[in-house]
């Protein structure tokens, strides 16, 4: 009988070794360990054994059964894993197919620049304010020391609606509004980004464009403060290596007045097409607020001084992103717009 057990063990191990599926494993289990299995059958024959033989064979059969059960169990979990892997393998997809998603939006480069300028000045304690685009002659010109008939009005031919109303030619109009709105006549620190309009249209001038205006009024404000502020502004926008050149100039609402050139960031000042081989690019107008402007808008020029500056945001955006044709900013070709669709440091 011992022989028999050994033979069964041998056969079973052999068969188990060849089991490659859960189904055949179960069949093998039933064949040997099932109710009618070969090993079970042997146990049933134990009664016919002698008293001495019985414990020996009994323990042998149990040992073989335990052994087989263990093998079957481990084999089973192994086969189950294989089966799951096979199933998952059959569910495989092509991960390189296109994703499903909503369209991707983009922020217009001009507004990107406006936001950048706003963030910088807000960090320096400036308030961002706005004013009407349909402005009165009074605020656009007269309160800025540009009385009717002033030759400088020629510099900015305007879109008039009536003799009194016009589309503002400069964000400076909001300077007068900020001063008039300040009832306490207390210090002012503001910037005004916004649309402006002039009666000209060619390759380098759009009849509609964008400016940002800055105005600071306080006690003891000097030209040196203007210079320091614009240095921070331009270095932030165009790079730390940017140099500034202040050229005395003329604007009716400031005295002294300065035009500000920045060193050409394309050639580094050596001279190229962008800077017309001068090394400099004219970018801002600025100056100390004219005493007449302070007076006309309720500030005492004996007590307060101030500075103001303004620059074209369209050009700033063009420089920042290397846009060569200004008309692209207003054409709104989706292929152009979609390029401005990501975070930009």
């Amino acid at each position, binding site marked *: 009988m011992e022989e028999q057990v050994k033979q069964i063990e041998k056969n079973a191990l052999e068969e188990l070794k060849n089991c490659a599926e859960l189904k055949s494993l179960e069949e093998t289990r039933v064949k040997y360990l099932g109710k009618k299995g070969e090993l079970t059958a042997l146990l049933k024959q134990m009664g016919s054994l002698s008293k001495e033989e019985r414990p020996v064979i009994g323990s042998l059969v149990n040992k073989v059964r335990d052994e087989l059960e263990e093998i079957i169990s481990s084999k089973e979990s192994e086969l189950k894993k294989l089966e799951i892997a096979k199933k998952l393998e059959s569910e495989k997809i092509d991960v390189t197919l296109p994703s499903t998603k909503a369209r991707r939006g*983009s922020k217009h480069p001009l507004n990107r620049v406006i936001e950048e300028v706003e963030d910088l000045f807000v960090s320096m304690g400036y*308030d961002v304010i706005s004013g009407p685009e349909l402005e009165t002659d009074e605020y656009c010109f007269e309160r800025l020391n540009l009385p009717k008939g002033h030759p400088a009005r020629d510099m900015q031919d305007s*879109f008039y609606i009536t003799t009194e109303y016009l589309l503002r030619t400069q964000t400076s109009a909001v300077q007068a509004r900020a001063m008039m709105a300040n009832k306490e006549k207390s210090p002012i620190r503001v910037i005004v980004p916004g*649309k402006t309009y002039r009666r000209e*249209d060619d390759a380098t001038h759009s009849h509609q464009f964008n400016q940002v205006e800055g105005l600071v009024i306080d006690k003891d404000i000097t030209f040196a403060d203007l210079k320091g502020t614009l240095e921070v502004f331009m270095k932030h926008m165009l790079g730390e290596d940017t140099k500034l050149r202040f050229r005395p100039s*003329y604007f009716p609402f400031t*005295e*002294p007045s300065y035009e500000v050139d920045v060193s050409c960031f394309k050639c580094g000042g050596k001279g190229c097409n962008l800077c017309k081989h001068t090394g400099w690019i004219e970018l801002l107008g600025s100056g100390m607020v004219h005493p007449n402007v302070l007076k006309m808008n309720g500030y005492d020029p004996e007590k307060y001084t101030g500075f103001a500056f303004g620059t074209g945001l369209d050009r700033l955006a063009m420089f920042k992103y290397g846009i060569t044709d200004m008309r692209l900013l207003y*054409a709104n070709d989706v292929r152009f717009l979609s390029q401005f669709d990501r975070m930009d440091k």
Partner: protein
Amino acid sequence: MKLSTNFLKDYLDIDINSKEDVHRLAEDMTKVGNEYDSEGMLIEATNLVIGEVLECEMHPDSDHLHVCKVNTGKENTQIVCGAPNVRKGLKVIVALPGAKLPGGEIKKSVIRGQESNGMLCSIAELGLESKFLKEEDKAGIHELDKDAPVGGDPIEYMHMKDGVIDFELTANRGDLLSILGMAYEVGAIYDKKVKPIDLTHKESGKLDFKLNIATDNCTLFLAKKVENVKIHESTPEMKEKLMASGIRPINNVVDISNYVMLETGQPLHFYDADKLKGMLEVRMAEAGEKLTTLDKQERTLGVDDIVISDGKRAIGLAGVMGGYDTEITENTKNIIIESAIFDSVKIRRTSNKILRSEASNRFEKGLDPNRTYMAIERSCNLLEKYADATVVGGMEVYDKTNKEDKKIDITAKDINSLLGSNIPEKEIIDIFERLGFKVEKKNDSIKAKDKEASSNEKTSTDTLTVYVPTRRLDISIKEDLIEEVGRIYGVDMIQGRLKEMPIKKGSYDRTAREIRNKMINLGMNETLTYSLVNEKEANMFTMKDKGVIKILAPLTEERNALRQSLITSLLKTYEYNVSRDNKDICLFEIAKAFYIEKDEYKEENRLACLMTGEYYLGLNTKPVDFYIIKGVCEELLDYLGYGGRYSFVADKEKLPEEMHPGKSAIISVNGETVGLIGRVTPELCKEEVYVMEISLDKLLSKKVGKMKYKELSKFPVVKKDIAVLVNKDVPAQELLKTIKNNGGKLLQESKVFDLYEGKGIPEGKKSIAFSVTLGDANKTLTDEEVNKVMEKVIAGLQSKHGAELRK
């Protein structure tokens, strides 16, 4: 203003000889505020030499070329020349190999087998502006005089060696439209004194001539007479200075009037005295009055134009151009000289309307009355010298001007505290003196000893009285003087600083930015379009009958009005993109719309959005329809905090005709219309184009509460689904409202989850299914409670909408 450096040197001792010198002057002028457009030499050509043609033979292989042997001073060399006038013995301008001419660089070459070591030049080839070229300059090479020194510099020989800087001057510096003004300015930079102008001349006889100034628009009028002028060509020097200044030489007399204008900035006018009726009158033109100007154009004048008349007829357009009838001709003998000042604004309006001239440009900027006198005397000096004129004694004068220097008091402290600089008083006084301003220091109470010390102080409060000459019309207040000090001292010398100011939080309107970012996150491309459109477009997509705002003087008819809706611009942008084969266009913009309401001009901040094509991309695309753009709208309104306060109302009456009446709606928040949404009518766009526009001013005026945490319920909610049959035209929004009204406190949410029409549903009806969520924050609901609510909801739907519950 084109500045001839030769001309400048007449009044200033200054070393400007080379191209480099000219460049340096231009840069130094820029630093003090006088920008230039271009700079260089009048003749830029290099490597030129005077040569003599020793031999001149026909080229063996050409019917027009000549082979010349030319003495260039250093050697005899062979040059092939194609000019018809080349001949033996001629003195010529030779461009040697390496010469750079406007047409290119000259190289040694072989022309049809003959060696050629240079080029014989015409004036045109040297690069002189074509308006200055004479016929012979265009026909052949330039013929120098017999005595021209072989080997010498031909440019110098022809008196054409000159630097030219073309300045773009600021509107306030009319004084720089003169060589004298330039001399004062350059003199201030280099600390050089301006040389006096020669006004001397002899006079004989007595002027017998009448003036009648019949308008306030003339404040100064001077007239003198010269007799027996001889008209011929001007000297080469004078011609060169005129050309370098951009003015074409005509004859000695006409050239003198231009020359004096360039020198002094005061335009003059010369009348042929024998064509006048013995008097000059200044008056306003009559409406429709005719005048033929020097350029033979007949001009029609108006009551705002100032004219000069001889008592009978207009003979000149004051400050702009003289009349044709009385102009100087080759036969002119006697001349009346006019030197005057007219109202600058009137001249500007007239010249803008009729024509701009060198004269009007100067009148517009304002003139110095002292120069008016100087100019008339200077012209007598030159007419005597260069036209053999006899100057008649005396001058007719009408003068209402003030010719005193302006006095302005200032202190070193004033200057340094506005500039943020540390310029000592001594240096300030020096700067004023360099500018030609006299300075007087007031004697005040400070003791002599202290004064000594304080004069070097940047904070000196001693009063300096500055006498500003009348030529500087731009200076009238303290700040003007501060600018002068700053620019001559050097703006670069002043250190920038950031003033320590009270710490303050800067503020900005975050909402527009939040809206922009939300729209971008929803897949929209932000656009930037023009406010000006044509009148038809300006009237499109308007919700109510508001007035359109038109431009008085538009640039083009395409941009003659302000848009009342941004949709019109987005639609144009859409069409632009379609024509470029761009697809799936989703755009938005935040900008202003303009209109007239109750006779008032209004501008309103709006958000507009346009969507077409596929919204979801990939293999499972989904084209834009009403519900997608509505989703975008809801996303935005919910984000801004208006969740539960808005509705979409199909109100055909309110919608503009550009919208599809069945696929559009009014957007209403708290019962007020804030915008519109829907499909553009197929008559305008064949493709399905959906748009939306919201008045941000109206929307954002509705307050939104602060974001606050609500306690999460610990008890389960109950979800119930119901489906009802209702008439097809009952809006889902109305049914939801009824559910909400009947659901009471326990109703937490209700939404549509299914819609069915067609088979199995009676004609004219639809089946609509709702999912209703009920719950109580404090307890678990019993079946009884739930059923009670649902019964009430169903009863409400039945009574209000005739709904039939589907089982």
